[in-house]
């Protein structure tokens, strides 16, 4: 043990090697990085964020404000507390100056999430939590017991208390192991409950392999987010010790008394050799005595009270410990670490400097009410405790043990058991007639604490080294300045000083800050209240929150039945919603522009095909289907003949275009409606909404068949001859199979529904087959090699040349059919349809509305960026610049031999022939306004 000079004699365990700040050390299995550093006598672990002051280990758990470290190996992880990093062989870490560095390489570890359900969730496996879980679990309830530490026991881990005659931590381990053996019990170790939301939705993060370092198995998720829905929650979250504001209370060597006790008892480490203890309450005496019994010299105990509990005074006397009642520590002194402590009687009196390398502080204990508060509970100030405790809560939640202010071990066990009984009753289980708890030792009668927050400084002291928030370097001076500036709310002081906003979220300092504000304002801390508790309770890695939703699983990738062919043939893909759609199919040596021009030419001059399977498809069935569609679409659908197809536009009630597509009449009472790719689900929801909430009398049912069908669009003057060859049984001449009709036939031997519709202006067919046959159909179409596959970019160019708008690209929820130049699709005959009344509103008939027009850049080689604004003048006036509208679509056209664009322009149709300007970078690009239909305006090409 020579390498660990502060390790207690007799400590056993496997030796682990680690490196900190470039130096090699040894620790023991079971250590945290903090306990291992203390064992090696490392006092300054980190430095503070603003002032750069050295900082040492202050606490023994997640409340640690000082000892921020970065793990460097095996994988970089910033902003961890040394008190929660379990030591492993090969750990390499460095102390941080308040902030860390993100890894610059991808994290190879796996992360995941899981949902869990239980009757009772118990947070915290200390005495109260274990007692609660035990009662609930033994009655057969589904119980989850979560605790942030590797081992159960909570406060028992740091003390020498016994239960049923054996060490408390042994009882805890045995009891939890027994519970875990029950079939409906789940014990989550190393699991921090970080958020408590509505309806007992609780989020916890389990650290599963972090403590294994490089030995962590690659297939096991490193961290796991638990999404727990609990019928009832018992919060047995214990408490955090707080410190007192005095000069130099941040020096390495100053430590919370309970933490020191944990280091001595649990980690078998001496946090120093000679200690002064400064306390406002009895709890620090147990720490002082445990340290003394372990060989730390207790130079003196300064107690702010006139007397501690009698038993404690007697025990100090037995050990010859000097007890200075009515005293305070006015300063911790030393260069870089504590070398002496200045102690003075309260009020007047001579100060003494006592040499010491350790100063234990206890300003009392604060119940951990974070989750209770997050869950919507109110807090109330408890005078005896000098802290806020849980009050009322609407949710099925209760706090137990010290979390609600119960201070004795026996009391916590009994309180936990009672909470367990109530949870059982609430979850509908039979409550056992009696429940037993283990026997605890008699505890000394406690003397009341005296809540001292701030040690008054001599007149010339500016309180600049009286820290209230160690991690944010906030001092009493800062708080006084905030209050002096007129801030009287603790929330405002928090934001002004940043107190409580660090990564520890003020666990040890929040109440102290409030108390100092209250002191400065001359009010009661209970009156002033606390700042709001928000999730997460402890920091969480982004990787854990992402879980497996990253990379190719970040968002669903939807593909069509033909996808494998597109991949195999070199398609570049475009994301359309969640769909991956072929964008274009470059040939060797082709860039996008060349490929799209070639694909466009094939569609206009020869024959080309596109995978159109992503369009939404809905079967609308019922005797009232035609009436229903008449109400939904702006145009008339009831007059559509069986065998025919009609294009339609849907608006919202405000008259703005919502979606468009074709309506196919399959039978008198059966239609197939297509929607845009991105709106398939929204349109079905829209239909259901009207049917269920407004027109329940209509006998109509809507069923999504989007993926039932795969669709190939066959386009171009030669499409008819290709179809004729694929479907020898189908009469394809124009009279037998006219525009806007559909037929059923076998295509390439596959039963198909063929629709003669066109989104390009060319002769075109859409061939629909069961999606099981989608790939076979596509391969048959491509088999001869004469059909050019084309993607969405070409589709966009072709439709834009014809002035066909794309909902969501050329519209944005503020565009009416009339704005799009589609008055013809708004029925004048129908009494009503969704949106009709809005077309009579003053706003929709404003003459200056933006209207869809075409734009031709004067330089036919210039491609306008989509989104570019349009102005009237050839030079920009002083801002604000009045804009007439913007470009919605912009392409190079093979058919036009030039670039062109579509745009929404105020009074656009009146402006046809006018010159406008598009600011692009530093230039103003001149453009001429034209009709939005630029190709084949007379529609001569659709019949081939």
């Amino acid at each position: 043990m020579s390498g660990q000079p502060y390790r207690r004699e007799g400590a056993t365990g496997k030796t682990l090697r680690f490196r900190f700040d470039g130096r090699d050390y040894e620790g023991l299995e079971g250590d945290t990085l903090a306990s291992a550093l203390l064992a090696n006598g490392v006092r300054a672990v980190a430095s503070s964020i603003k002032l750069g002051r050295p900082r040492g280990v202050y606490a023994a758990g997640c409340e640690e404000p000082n000892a921020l470290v970065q793990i460097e190996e095996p994988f970089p992880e910033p902003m961890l507390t040394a008190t929660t990093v379990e030591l492993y062989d090969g750990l390499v870490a460095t102390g941080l100056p308040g902030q860390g560095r993100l890894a610059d390489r991808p994290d190879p570890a796996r992360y995941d999430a899981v949902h869990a359900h239980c009757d009772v969730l118990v947070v915290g496996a200390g005495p109260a939590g274990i007692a609660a879980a035990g009662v609930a679990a033994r009655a057969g309830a589904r119980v989850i017991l979560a605790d942030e530490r590797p081992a159960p026991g909570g406060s028992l881990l740091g003390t020498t208390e016994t239960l049923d005659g054996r060490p408390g931590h042994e009882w805890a381990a045995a009891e939890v192991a027994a519970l875990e053996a029950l079939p409906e019990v789940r014990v989550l170790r190393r699991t921090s409950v970080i958020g408590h939301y509505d309806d007992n939705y609780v989020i916890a993060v389990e650290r599963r392999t972090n403590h294994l370092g490089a030995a962590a198995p690659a297939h096991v998720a490193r961290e796991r987010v638990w999404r727990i829905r609990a019928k009832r929650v018992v919060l047995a979250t214990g408490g955090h010790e707080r410190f007192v504001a005095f000069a130099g209370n941040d020096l390495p060597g100053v430590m919370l008394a309970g933490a020191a006790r944990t280091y001595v008892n649990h980690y078998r480490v001496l946090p120093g050799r000679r200690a002064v203890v400064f306390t406002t309450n009895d709890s620090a005496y147990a720490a002082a005595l445990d340290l003394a019994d372990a060989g730390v010299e207790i130079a003196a105990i300064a107690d702010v009270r006139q007397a501690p509990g009698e038993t404690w005074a007697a025990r100090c006397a037995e050990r010859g410990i000097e007890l200075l009642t009515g005293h305070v520590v006015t300063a911790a002194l030393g260069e870089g670490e504590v070398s002496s402590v200045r102690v003075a009687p309260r009020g007047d009196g001579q100060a003494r400097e006592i040499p010491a390398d350790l100063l234990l502080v206890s300003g009392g204990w604060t119940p951990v009410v974070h989750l209770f508060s997050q869950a919507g509970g109110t807090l109330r100030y408890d005078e005896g405790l000098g802290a806020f405790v849980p009050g009322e809560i609407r949710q099925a939640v209760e706090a137990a043990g010290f979390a609600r202010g119960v201070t004795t071990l026996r009391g916590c066990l009994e309180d936990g058991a009672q909470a367990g009984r109530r949870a059982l009753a609430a979850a509908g289980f039979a409550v056992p007639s009696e429940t037993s708890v283990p026997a605890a030792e008699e505890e000394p009668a406690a003397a009341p604490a005296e809540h001292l927050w701030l040690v008054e400084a001599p007149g010339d002291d500016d309180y600049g080294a009286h820290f209230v928030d160690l991690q944010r370097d906030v001092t009493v001076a800062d708080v006084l300045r905030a209050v002096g500036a007129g801030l009287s709310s603790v929330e405002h002081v928090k934001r002004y000083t940043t107190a409580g906003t660090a990564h520890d979220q003020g666990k040890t300092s929040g109440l102290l800050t409030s108390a100092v504000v209250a002191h400065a304002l001359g009010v009661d801390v209970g009156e002033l209240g606390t700042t709001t508790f928000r999730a997460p309770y402890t920091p969480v890695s982004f990787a854990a929150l992402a879980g497996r939703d990253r990379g190719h699983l970040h968002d669903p990738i939807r593909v069509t039945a033909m996808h494998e062919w597109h991949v195999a043939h070199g398609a570049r893909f475009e994301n359309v919603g969640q769909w991956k759609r072929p964008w274009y199919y470059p040939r060797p040596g082709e860039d996008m522009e060349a490929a799209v021009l070639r694909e466009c030419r094939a569609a206009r001059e020869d024959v080309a095909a596109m995978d159109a399977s992503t369009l939404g498809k809905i079967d609308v069935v019922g005797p009232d289907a035609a009436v229903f569609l008449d109400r939904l679409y702006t145009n008339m659908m009831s007059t559509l003949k069986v065998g025919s197809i009609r294009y339609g536009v849907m608006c919202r009630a405000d008259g703005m275009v919502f979606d468009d597509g074709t309506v196919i009449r399959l039978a008198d009472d059966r239609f197939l409606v297509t929607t845009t790719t991105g709106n398939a689900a929204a349109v079905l929801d829209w239909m259901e909404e009207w049917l269920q909430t407004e027109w329940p009398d209509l006998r109509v049912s809507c069923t999504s068949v989007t993926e039932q069908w795969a669709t190939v669009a066959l386009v171009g003057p030669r499409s008819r001859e290709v179809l004729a060859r694929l479907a020898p049984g189908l009469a394809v001449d124009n009279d037998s199979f006219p525009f806007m009709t559909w037929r059923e036939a076998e295509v390439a031997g596959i039963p198909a529904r063929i629709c003669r519709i066109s989104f390009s202006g060319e002769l075109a067919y859409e061939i629909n087959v069961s999606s099981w046959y989608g790939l076979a159909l596509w391969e048959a179409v491509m088999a001869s090699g004469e059909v050019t596959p084309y993607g969405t970019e070409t589709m966009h160019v072709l439709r834009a040349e014809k002035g066909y708008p794309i909902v969501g690209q050329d519209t944005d929820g503020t565009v009416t059919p009339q704005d799009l130049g589609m008055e013809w699709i708004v029925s004048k005959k129908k009494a009503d349809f969704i949106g009709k009344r809005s077309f009579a509103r003053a706003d929709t008939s404003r003459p200056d509305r933006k209207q869809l027009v075409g734009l031709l850049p004067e330089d036919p080689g210039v491609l306008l960026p989509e989104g570019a604004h349009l102005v009237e003048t050839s030079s920009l006036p002083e801002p604000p610049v009045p804009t007439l509208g913007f470009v919605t679509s912009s392409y190079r056209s093979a058919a036009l031999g030039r670039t062109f664009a579509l745009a929404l322009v105020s009074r656009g149709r009146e402006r046809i022939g006018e010159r406008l300007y598009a600011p692009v970078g530093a230039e103003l690009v001149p453009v001429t306004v034209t009709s939005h239909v630029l190709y084949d305006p007379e529609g001569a090409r659709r019949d081939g």
Partner: protein
Amino acid sequence: MLLIPCPWCGPRDEAEFHYGGQAHIAYPDNPAALSDEEWARYLFFRDNPKGPFAERWSHTAGCRRWFNVVRDTATNEIHAVYRVGEPRPVTA
């Protein structure tokens, strides 16, 4: 994450539902007979109380039914759930 009791499927996570705004806003019988102001009130004006509020939800990831919920907008407490067409129940 609220736990919303779908009147058909039982309690499900909020993520399975779509919100539909204030309940009991009926589509006017004869929109053409309304003044611009009346029509605009139907289109754009909704209550925004602090406290119990009758609102519509649709169980989009489940049975796809629309239904009504009385939810306290301050506490998220759900006082009542009822089907479309049923009157708003009296709640505390």
